[in-house]
Structures are given as structure tokens and as C-alpha cells.
């Protein structure tokens, strides 16, 4: 797409009519005064293609003239694939007008014109599927291209790729789109909840759960009310039946009869009781006499038994005392032998410990010797490494300098070849006349390439001035001079006179670096590893370690009081001998201890048994004596025969009394107990009836109170209200669920569309922007990470994080991104032109030439228009101005 001319009337701050004409295919610099505004021009160019003339949208209403709201009108003349078009639009809402004039007298008006524009620029209704809809005019505005939604500090902006990605997204409508996506995400979070707290959905469901519980509670209450009412009916029926079945008068009659019967029975019972008492007294006396007789017999048997047990105890004690005396003398002799063996074991253990300490000191001496050898080797290697480092430091040549020298040589060759290719070759051949060229004498024959004004003098004939008209000759000569100057400078920096010499120095430097690495590896192997003492690794640490080992050896020899150390083998032999002796002594001790154990246990058992027997004897002696005295005293009062006679007489008396009681009982009727039980049964029935009536009355009263109290709550009213709220909340929950599904679909669609757009453009755009950056910053070297993302950028020896570069460079990327996208669109056969703001394009802190070089190169493929407030130096671009004009007619004519 090439923009040729634009005319504006009443567009925002512009009253007009104004016009910009004569835009070329390549780079155009358009000087725009402050009173017009660069942004306005940009907006107008965009609007005349992309906005409908009859649109009532807020954007289009905003085009109206600021002063009096006059209807804006824009005319744009442009070329698409070599075909010229003119579009004219009056943005007057429904009264708006659009005219598009094309080749072969094609004329489109209003909707037809809009549709044709959509077709030509492939946007709006014509765009479907994954193809991104990106406009044909790609602009960089004065406002920073990384603003509120694209912050520099943002971690996502850290690499070139990500910067370009952000810009591509911006070109594809990212700023507003991201705001909409953000709003949709926020709305979704408001429903579903997130870090800020539970969402509306959760709150709604929580309340629904709460209402469910309330409803269940109320339902239960209502069910309870129904149950209470049913229970009340049952209780009332039960009470009625109970009262109907009760005969209180009959019960009272039965009670009176029973009480009279009880009076007669009570008299007979008192006579019987007297007879029973007499029999009881007789029985007690007979029993007492028999008891005394049995007690005398028992005492006699007890005394006999005690005397027999005392006699057998005394015999056993005498036998045990004899056996324990023999065992004690045997144990004494075995204990003496055991003491001797234990003393021998102690002396042998002492000797073993001293020998083991000596062996430790000998091992320490061997460790010291090994570390002293390592220290000597490491010190030697360290000195060598310093020497190699010094040599490397003296060589300036590097791979980078070699590449630069190669580039510089190539540039000199290319520059010279370029000049030679346009030179004019003059050959001469004279018989006798001498030739001078620019005062320098030449031979009779020869040839020369003429690239500049040259005076060709022939002796005696005159001079010929030859001046070839080579386009850009000065520039070519300057290019050769610059290239040579750069080559010389680069050679001087490497310290070599020639390119090959620089390469040789670079190779020598690499050999030295290899040796330095090998030394480093060997020293690292020799040095002390981190032993956990906190000591730093290195030569000094190794020296310290050797000193420590030496001090430790001296201390330990002093402790053992030895001046010289024996060989390790002799120590090991002596240690084995002593360990063997120790084992033999230990075995002998074990044997002696086992032999003495059994006699000791036997003595202890005998002593214990003896003590038990003596205690038993002492216990039995006292009761034996007491019983003997008791038996003697009893017999002195009543003899054994007298006791026997009395017991027999009292038993006969008891038998007589008992026979009289039996005779009386046989003459009695119902007993008092039976009559009392009958009376009690009747009284209990009456009491039970009273209790049942009272219980039923209480239950009925309680239930009536409960029913009355529960009715006061208005359970059904509350239940109805809860159900209504439940239904309302279910409706809300369904709406929220629906809204969430809608938002999710919207969010997904926005995300996939943005991804498709970015994906289509991103990779080729990154490659193009990188290429432009290399042109802009020839001394810069882009460093790539594993994902081929430009993570760092290098200026000479200064390496900088990409994200730390100034905003100016970031704005260059914004410019290059648009050029890259326009280039891509053009390559796809789609219309694209680039309009740039000079504030963004030509940062004041950087030279203009490199940027112009890039823009000129890019404008070979894409038309670029730079809007500027100031006049820029002539670097090969076409400079244009905004001019006022008088319109000839209202109609637009195709020219």
C-alpha cells in the first residue's frame, strides 16, 4: 500500500482544508506544525479507511471539529498493487457519505464503498476464522508504546522476543483487548471467587445450604406439631377409657371385708406367738449346752497337734546347721584364686591402651608426610599459572576482534569493488610523446581507471580533462575511507600489523588458556577439600593444614613421653600378643566365677531355711502353753462327763415345746400375711389408677402447652418465607452459573484469538526486528539463550540486561515491530503502510544516521511516513509539508 495524498477538513483540531501531497513509495518525512498535530493526521488516515462514514460510534463522533462540531471530511489517495484509489468520507452519522473511486471509472458509494474498502483491506466482515484482522496502517504514536498495560518492569518484557510479542499484540488490538479480557476475568473471579475472597456463587450456595437447614428444621417442627396433635388425641382417648373402666365403690367394699377378717386372725396369732417364744427359749438353752461340749473336745485336740509340730521342727534345725558349715569353708578358698586373676587382667589392659595410642601417632606422622608432598607440587603449579596468565594478558587479539577485522576487510574490498565497477578505463599508446596524468609522468603506453576528475597531458600536444559522472561517487569514496579507517583502528587495537598476525596471536592465546585450565584442574585436585572446619580451600589452607598436623604430632608424642617412633609393624605384633593374653585371663576369670556360684547359693538357701524354722518354732511355743492352761482351768470347774449329761436333757425339753406349736398352727385359717397381701394389692390398684389418671392429665396439659407454644411461632409462615427465599436463591445461582459459562466462553475466545494473531506474526517479526537492531547498533552483539531469545545485548565490552536498556531502545523495537508486521503483511499481498512519530523514531540521545539507514532499507519494501515537528537533515528521504488549499469542487475526481 502506498499513500499518495491526504486532505482533511474539520477533523478534530484541524479546520482546513489542508493537504499533504507527493508521498513517495519509500521513506517520507512529513513536517507537521504544532497547530495541526501529528496524532490528528494519523487518526484521519486511519479513519478514512477503517471507520464507516455513517457510524454513530463514540470513536467516530470524536472526529468532529473541536471548535464548532462541524462535520469532518477526509480524502485519501492511495495505491494498492499499482492500482490507484481515492476514498472520500464525510463522518456525519446516519447522514454520512463514503465515496470510493477506483481504476476503470469504478465508482462506489456509501455501503458499497465501505464493503469495497473492507475487501481491499481485508478487515471487519470479510475476516473470519484464524486469520488476524490487522489494519493496513501501522502507526507508532507519540505516547509511549509501553504504557499502563505494558510496563517495562514487567517480567514478561525482559527479552527481545517478549518485547516484540507485546508490540505485535498491541498492533493486533492488544491494549483495548487486554482491558476487556481483564474485565471479563475480573467478572468471572467475582462470581467464582479468588484471592480476594469467596465469589457471589459461593455466597449464594452458602446461603442456600443455610436455608436448606432452616427449612429442614421448620419441616421437622411442623411434623412434630402434627405428631403432637395425634399424640394428644391418643392420650385423651386413653384417659377416657381408663375413667370408664374404673369401679371405685366395689374396691372400697372388698377392702372393708378384708380388714374385718384381719382382726379375728390377729387374736389367734398372739396365742401362737407365745407358744413359739417358749419353744424358742428351750431351743437356745439346748444349743448352748451342746456348744460347750464341742468346745472342750476341740481344745483337747489342738494341744495334741501343737506338741507334735514343735518336736519335728527341732529335728530339722539340727540337720541344717551341720550341712552349711562344710559349704562355707570350700567357698573361701575359691574366692582367693579369683582376686589374683582380676589383678592380672587390669595390668594387661593398661599395656594395650598405651600401644594403641602409639599406633595413632605413627599414622598421624604418615598423613603429615603425604600433605607436605602435595603442598610442594601445588606451589610449583601456582607459580606456573601466574606466568601463563601474564602471557595471556599481553595478547589483545580475540575471536571478536578477528570477526571485526574480517568484516572490516570485507567492507574495504566491497567499497573498492563498488567504485571500480563504475570506473572508466582509459588506455593509451603513443609513439614518442610522453604522457602525464595529474602531473605524474607515465610511459608511452598504459591504461588507467578513471573514477574522478583526471587531467591527461600529452607532451607538446596539450591536456585532456576527463571527469566521469558516477552517481554517489563521493559516498563511495567516503565508504572506502571509512572502511579503511575502521580496519586500521581494529588492527591497532589488536596490536598487530596484519590480519594474519592477529589470527596467530589469537591462536597462541587459546593455547595458553588451555594450559591455564589444566593447571587449575591439577591444583584443585591437590588442594585440601572442604573438611567441614570452615577453612577456605586453597594453597594457604593446605599450608595451614600441614602446620596443624605437625603441631598435633608433637603434642601427642609429648603426651606419650616418647622421642622416637617405632615402626607400625612392630606395634601391630606387640598389640596382637597382649590381646591374646587378655583373652586367656578373661576366660579363666569366667571359669572361676562359674565354679563358685553353686556353693554360694547352697549356703544362702540353708541360712534362709534355718531362719524360717526358728521363727516357726517361736510362734508355736506361746499358743501351746496358753491352750494347756485353758484346758486345765475348764476341767477344774466342770468335768467332761457333767457337760455331756446336761446337753442331752436340754435337747429333750426343746422337742416337747416344738410339738405344741405344731398342734396350734394346724388349727388356724388364712394367715395375717395373706390377708395383708390382699389388702395391699387392692390399695395398690387404687393408687395405680390415681397415678395413671394424673400422668395422663399431666401429659395432656404438657402437649397442649407445647402445641400452643409452637403455633405461636407460625411455622408454616416461616417455612413459606424460607421456601420463597430458597427458590429466589436457586434462580440467582442458575443465573450466576449461566453468566459464568458466558464469561468463560468469552474469555476463551478472546484468549485463543489473541494467541492466533500473535502466533501468526510473532516468529517472523522477531527475526526482522533483530535484523533491524543489528543495523541500528552495528557494534552491538545480541546474546541468545537456549530458546533463541535475546536475553542480553552487548555494546563493546559492556554487557547489559535487555530489560535494563533505556526506554529509547524499547521504542525502537516498537517502531521495528510495526515495520516488521507491515513487511509481513505486504509479503502476504495485504496492504500495509507505516506512519511513525519522530519522537519515537529519532531519540535525541542517539545519532540520526543509523536509524535513517534502517528506515531507508525498510522503505524499499514498505512505504514509511515519519511525522515530525522539525526539519530533519537530508539523509535521502523525501520531505513533505502540510499545505492549505482551496477545494475546486465538492466532488472528488479521479485523476
Amino acid at each position: 500500500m502506498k499513500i499518495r495524498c491526504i486532505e482533511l477538513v474539520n477533523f478534530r483540531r484541524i479546520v482546513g482544508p489542508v493537504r499533504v501531497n507527493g508521498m513517495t513509495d519509500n521513506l517520507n518525512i512529513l513536517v507537521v506544525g504544532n497547530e495541526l498535530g501529528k496524532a490528528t493526521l494519523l487518526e484521519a488516515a486511519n479513519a478514512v479507511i477503517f471507520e464507516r462514514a455513517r457510524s454513530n460510534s463514540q470513536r467516530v463522533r470524536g472526529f468532529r471539529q473541536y471548535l464548532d462540531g462541524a462535520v469532518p471530511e477526509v480524502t485519501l489517495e492511495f495505491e494498492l498493487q499499482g492500482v490507484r484509489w481515492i476514498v472520500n468520507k464525510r463522518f456525519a452519522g446516519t447522514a454520512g457519505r463514503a465515496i470510493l473511486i477506483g481504476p476503470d471509472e469504478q465508482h462506489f458509494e456509501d455501503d458499497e464503498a465501505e464493503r469495497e474498502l473492507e475487501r481491499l483491506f481485508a478487515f471487519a466482515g470479510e475476516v473470519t476464522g484464524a486469520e488476524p484482522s490487522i489494519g493496513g496502517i501501522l502507526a507508532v504514536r507519540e505516547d509511549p508504546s509501553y504504557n499502563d498495560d505494558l510496563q517495562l518492569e514487567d517480567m514478561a518484557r525482559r527479552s527481545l522476543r517478549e518485547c516484540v510479542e507485546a508490540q505485535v499484540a498491541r498492533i493486533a488490538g492488544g491494549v483495548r483487548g487486554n482491558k476487556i479480557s481483564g474485565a471479563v476475568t475480573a467478572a468471572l473471579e467475582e462470581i467464582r471467587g479468588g484471592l480476594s475472597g469467596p465469589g457471589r456463587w459461593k455466597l449464594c450456595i452458602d446461603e442456600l445450604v443455610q436455608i436448606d437447614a432452616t427449612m429442614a428444621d421448620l419441616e421437622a417442627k411442623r411434623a412434630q406439631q402434627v405428631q403432637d396433635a395425634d399424640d394428644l388425641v391418643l392420650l385423651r382417648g386413653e384417659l377416657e377409657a381408663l375413667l370408664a373402666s374404673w369401679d371405685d365403690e366395689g374396691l372400697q367394699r372388698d377392702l372393708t371385708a378384708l380388714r374385718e377378717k384381719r382382726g379375728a386372725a390377729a387374736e389367734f396369732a398372739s396365742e401362737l406367738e407365745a407358744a413359739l417364744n417358749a419353744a424358742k427359749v428351750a431351743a437356745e438353752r439346748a444349743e448352748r449346752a451342746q456348744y460347750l461340749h464341742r468346745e472342750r473336745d476341740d481344745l483337747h485336740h489342738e494341744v495334741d497337734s501343737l506338741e507334735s509340730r514343735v518336736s519335728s521342727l527341732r529335728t530339722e534345725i539340727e540337720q541344717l546347721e551341720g550341712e552349711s558349715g562344710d559349704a562355707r569353708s570350700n567357698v573361701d578358698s575359691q574366692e582367693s584364686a579369683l582376686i589374683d586373676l582380676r589383678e592380672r587382667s587390669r595390668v594387661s589392659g593398661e599395656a594395650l591402651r598405651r600401644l594403641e595410642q602409639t599406633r595413632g601417632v605413627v599414622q598421624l606422622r604418615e598423613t603429615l608426610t603425604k600433605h607436605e608432598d602435595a603442598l610442594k607440587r601445588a606451589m610449583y603449579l601456582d607459580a606456573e599459572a601466574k606466568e601463563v596468565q601474564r602471557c595471556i594478558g599481553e595478547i589483545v587479539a580475540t575471536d571478536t576482534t578477528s570477526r571485526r577485522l574480517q568484516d572490516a576487510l570485507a567492507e574495504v574490498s566491497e567499497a573498492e569493488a563498488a567504485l571500480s565497477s563504475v570506473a572508466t578505463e582509459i588506455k593509451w599508446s603513443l609513439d614518442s610523446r610522453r604522457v602525464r596524468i595529474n602531473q605524474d609522468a607515465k610511459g608511452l603506453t598504459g591504461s588507467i581507471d578513471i573514477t574522478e576528475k583526471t587531467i591527461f597531458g600529452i607532451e607538446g600536444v596539450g591536456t585532456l580533462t576527463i571527469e566521469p559522472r558516477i552517481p554517489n561517487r563521493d559516498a563511495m569514496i567516503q565508504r572506502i575511507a571509512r572502511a579503511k579507517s575502521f580496519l586500521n583502528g581494529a588492527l591497532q587495537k589488536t596490536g598487530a600489523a596484519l590480519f594474519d598476525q592477529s589470527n596467530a596471536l589469537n591462536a597462541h592465546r587459546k593455547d595458553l588458556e588451555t594450559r591455564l585450565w589444566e593447571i587449575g584442574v591439577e591444583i584443585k585436585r591437590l588442594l585440601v577439600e572442604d573438611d567441614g572446619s570452615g577453612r577456605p580451600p586453597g594453597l594457604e589452607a593446605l599450608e595451614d593444614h600441614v602446620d596443624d598436623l605437625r603441631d598435633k604430632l608433637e603434642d601427642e608424642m609429648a603426651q606419650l613421653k616418647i622421642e622416637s617412633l617405632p615402626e607400625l609393624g612392630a606395634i601391630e605384633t606387640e598389640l596382637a600378643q597382649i590381646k591374646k593374653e587378655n583373652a586367656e585371663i578373661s576366660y579363666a576369670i569366667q571359669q572361676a566365677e562359674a565354679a563358685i556360684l553353686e556353693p554360694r547359693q547352697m549356703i544362702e538357701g540353708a541360712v534362709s531355711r534355718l531362719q524360717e524354722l526358728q521363727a516357726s518354732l517361736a510362734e508355736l511355743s506361746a499358743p501351746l502353753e496358753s491352750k494347756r492352761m485353758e484346758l486345765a482351768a475348764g476341767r477344774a470347774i466342770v468335768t467332761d462327763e457333767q457337760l455331756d449329761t446336761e446337753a442331752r436333757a436340754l435337747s429333750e425339753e426343746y422337742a416337747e415345746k416344738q410339738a405344741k406349736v405344731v398342734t396350734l398352727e394346724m388349727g388356724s385359717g388364712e394367715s395375717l400375711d395373706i390377708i395383708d397381701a390382699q389388702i395391699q394389692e387392692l390399695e395398690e390398684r387404687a393408687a395405680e389408677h390415681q397415678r395413671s389418671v394424673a400422668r395422663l392429665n399431666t401429659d395432656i396439659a404438657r402437649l397442649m402447652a407445647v402445641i400452643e407454644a409452637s403455633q405461636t411461632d407460625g411455622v408454616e409462615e416461616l417455612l413459606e418465607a424460607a421456601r420463597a427465599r430458597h427458590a429466589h436463591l436457586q434462580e440467582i445461582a442458575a443465573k450466576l452459573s449461566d453468566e459464568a459459562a458466558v464469561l468463560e466462553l468469552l474469555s476463551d475466545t478472546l484468549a485463543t484469538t489473541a494467541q492466533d494473531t500473535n502466533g501468526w506474526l510473532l516468529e517472523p517479526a522477531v527475526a526482522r526486528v533483530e535484523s533491524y537492531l543489528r543495523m541500528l547498533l552495528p557494534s552491538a552483539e545480541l546474546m541468545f539463550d537456549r530458546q533463541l531469545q535475546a536475553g542480553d545485548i552487548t555494546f563493546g565490552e559492556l554487557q547489559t540486561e535487555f530489560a535494563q536498556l533505556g526506554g529509547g531502545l524499547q521504542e525502537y523495537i516498537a517502531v521495528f515491530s510495526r515495520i516488521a508486521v507491515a513487511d509481513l503483511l505486504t509479503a502476504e499481498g495485504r496492504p500495509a503502510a507505516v506512519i511513525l512519530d519522530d519522537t519515537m523514531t529519532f531519540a535525541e540521545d542517539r545519532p540520526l544516521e543509523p536509524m535513517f539507514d534502517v528506515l531507508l532499507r525498510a522503505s524499499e519494501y514498505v512505504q514509511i511516513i515519519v511525522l515530525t515537528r522539525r526539519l530533519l537533515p537530508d539523509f535521502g528521504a523525501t520531505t513533505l509539508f502540510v499545505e492549505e488549499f482551496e477545494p475546486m469542487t465538492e466532488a472528488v475526481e479521479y485523476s
Partner: protein
Amino acid sequence: MRLIHSSDLQIGKAFGQFDVQVATQLQAARMNALKTLGDLAVRHKASAILLAGDTFDRQQISMPTIQKAFEQMRACGQVTWHLLPGNGDAYGEYGVWERLTAAELPENVRLHIAPGPVKIAHQQGVPIYLLPAPTLERQTMGDPTEYMDTAATPEGAVRIGLAHSRAPQIGVGISATSEIASNRGDAAGLSYLALGGYHAQRRIADRTWYSGTPEPDEFLLPVSSSSTLCMGGNSLLVEVNSATAKPAVVSLETGRYRWHYVEKTLNGDAQISFLENELRVLERDLSRMVLALRVGGTLSLAGRRLLEQRIVNSMARELLGIHFTDTDLVPQASQADLDEIDRTGFVRTAAERLRTIATDPENPERARLASLALQRLYQEHLRTAGQP
């Protein structure tokens, strides 16, 4: 004798389809209907008010609600209130009526929980009898007014029937379940039969009327009504001069709020303004209006937004309450809608994709969601552009 005939006050109704504030006002209006009836009785010199059933919405009504209702009746001391159980508050053991019989009611309130003639007044020496037909159980079988044919009253007495039943002339929209004979008034020699159970006012015969509920409570249009005004909002002033004379019946407006049900199919954005005008002229005082609006048809995204702004948001603030249903309304994105969103860029592409999904007949649910998503995108776009 003059009397006011009303029914179906449904005191205690919840109105759950509305927000709590609106529901509270509607409940208060039902309670206030008692005062309105009392005031009308005084103004028209009526000595009795007949409430023909369903005075209460449920059996288990809370005591404060019941007390509030009876305080309203007590306040109108010169009028006697005659209350009858209906099918919603049928008389049963331990129900609301048993509680009322046990409670200390105002002296000017009489409960009629058993069938049988009850003398309620004298007019120039002629006794006036009320013949109530209470609904004794929720599902009453048979005709509760049948006894009136044979119920004895003194010769020449004025007999007034009071029932909560379905007359054969009423087809749908009636809550009463027990059906009465169509000629009950004549057969039972009634001077007037006051019926309840149908929320609209309706003459069944010269001597038989449904009063309707004094305060509307549902979006139900009377049978064969061409208006948008829902049932209820009126009562009857009845003058009975003798046992045989035809009663004079006059309708009285009693409703505080007026309920309207409107169904509209919109086929173009221009119809939104017409709809708004149509709604605004339904009532002079919009704050008394409760509206059920059901819209269908097709609107552009801009039109859908306009409908939201003009009616669902703006006009709704002037109404007491609105129940808006738009499930049959299909938002259809126009070219202008999409251009308003954007003419280029990925947001426009996303809009185009949503429009494609929205017109996919293979997956109607996804199409519906896409259609709503497009509407949402339109709204979010305007919001990010600074428009509310």
C-alpha cells in the same frame, strides 16, 4: 342492610419472587387492606364486612401476624367482621381457627367455623341471618352450601350465604376446590351469596358474586381479559333491602398496588421506545405498579443494551417491583454492533468468531452462550471506552 364483601386476603403470604424490600411492602399492603375495608364500610355506612375465606395464607401463621390483623379489625369498632375458613386456611383441629377460638378476639369479630344459620342483625324488625359454609378440611368433598337449601330461619328473614367455593361458571384461575351448585342462591332462598376463592371480581348471578381479593397478589389475568391488569384490587358494597329484593352491588377499589402482566415480542430496536411508552401509560402513578414483563424476539446488541438501560434499570426504579423474563429474547449482533466493538484487531476477530458460534444450529446451547457472550463483549467494550 349494607355490607362489604371481600375475600382471599391471604395474610402472611411471602412473595418470594421479589426482593425482600418489595416483598415486605406487598405484605404490608395486604395487612393494610383490612384498614381500607374498614374505612370503606364506615364511609358507605355498612354495618358488616364479610370475608369469604382465605383470610390467612396458611394454617401456621405467627401470633404477631394474627394479632396485627385483629388489631386492624378492632380499630374499626362500629363494623362487625364475619370471618370464614377457606381452602387455604381450612378449619381443622389445632389449626389457625382453633387458636382463634381460644384467643381473646375483638368484640366486633365473629368466626363462622360451623355451618348453620346465625342471626347477625335486625333491619326494621326483619331478622338477618348469615348462612356460612366453612371449609372444614383442606380437600373438602361435596358441596358445603347444600345445607342452606333446608336450613330453617324465621319466616321473612333475610338469608345471606357466605362460602369459599368454586362456581361452575369459573373455569381456571380459582383456588377454591369445593364446587357449589350453580343455582344455590335461588334454591336456598338467599338474598345474597358472598363467594370467595377467585381472586378476580366476578358476577355469577344477580344474587351471587365473587368479590375478588382486595389487594392483588399474583400475575394472573382474569379469564378472557384483554387488559394487562391482573386479578384483584377490588371489593363489593352490597345493599340488601329485603328477603326477596335483588341486592344492589357496587364495586369499590381497594388495592394499594396494581399488578400488570405484559408479554411483548420485539423485532427491532425501534420498538424499545414504543414498549417503554406503552408501559408508562399503564399507570398514572408508577410507584403503585408491579410489573411482570416477558420479552421475546430479536434485538441488536445496542438494542438489548438500550432495553436494559431504559426499562430494566431506569424505569424499574420508578416501579414498586418488576419481574423481568428475557429467556425468549435473542440478541443478534448487527454489523453496526460489531463495528462499534472494533473494526480491526483481535477483539473484532473474537467477536466474529462468537457470532459464527451463535448462529450454529447444531449446538443450540453453545449458540445461546455465544450470543450472550457477544452481548457481554459489547457491554465490556463500552465500559472500557468509558461508557456506563
